[in-house]
């Protein structure tokens, strides 16, 4: 900071120090709660969506096969999903 205004700024800042400490802690606390909830929402909702996607939409078997795991327990849903995935857009009339 240029040498300047230091003589003006310092006493004012010292006067404000006490109330500002309370404000600092309050703002930090509120923002901590906001960001904590953000992280919670991200983690929980994404996990929920991933689990749901694994079980319902893709089917555990479909993904497993894609990743090279055992394929002996294929469900009907997997078969349907595989069929729709394998047919090209042209053959489906799109």
């Amino acid at each position, binding site marked *: *900071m*240029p*040498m*300047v*205004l*230091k*003589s*003006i*700024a*310092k006493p*004012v*800042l010292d006067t*404000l*120090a*006490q*109330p*500002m*400490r*309370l*404000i*600092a*802690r*309050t*703002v*930090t*606390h*509120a*923002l*901590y*709660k*906001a*960001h*904590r*909830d*953000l*992280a*919670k*929402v*991200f*983690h929980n*909702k*994404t*996990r929920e969506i*991933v689990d749901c996607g*694994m079980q319902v939409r893709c089917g*555990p078997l479909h*993904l*497993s096969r*894609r*990743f*090279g*795991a055992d394929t002996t327990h294929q469900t009907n849903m997997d078969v349907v999903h595989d069929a729709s995935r394998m047919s090209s857009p042209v053959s489906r009339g799109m």
Partner: protein
Amino acid sequence: MYWGPLYPSFVHIRELTRDPAHCLQQFVNERAGLQVSAAAVSLFADTPLQELEFLFESGVRTNMQAALTTFQAGVDALLHRAHRKSGRGDSAKTSNPSNNVHGILSNVTVSLIHDCKLRLEHDVQTALTLCMLPRLREKAADVLKVSVSSVVVVPCGIIVTTHFLHIFQAQLEDVLTSTSIPEALAPFLDAEGIVYDVLEDAAHRFVCDTLWKDAKVLLGRFDKLVRKWT
């Protein structure tokens, strides 16, 4: 009004920006030995709270977007790798995809919490600086007892201190008049802006060196979240 999944985060922010006095009181009530002073309430009330609300909420949205993009990129890369491996026929080496996706999620959550810490630090420091600036400007203008813009001696690039001003009042009298800024340069120079920049810098340093040291203790709580989710 429905704000989507970010609703819980926005509630905390809006409690603070819409009713700061109540928020201060609530914070104090939860802790023994603290009291809300009238100075704190009036200081907070003078802050541009809508600006702060926008800043805080933008931070939350940006962090969420960054986390989702990173997660998506991680899953894409995982699927791409799996596709290549299945093409090569070395499928036996691949592990359960569910574990992999959850692993990506854990990593991204850790990154998100790290981002949250950085964002929180930036936002708190900005908010506190904005909080102090109005008083600082008032005081500066009051002490100088002249229009702030006339205090800057622009041709030499010097800003005069009050101390300096008192000592050399007589000698500087001529310089401190509006003629000190050459007319040709006047449209290009924001003398008042220079003074405000200096004050802002002083306030920001004060926040970083003094106030943030007390407040940042709370960031340790984020580490507990990391341990919980990894």
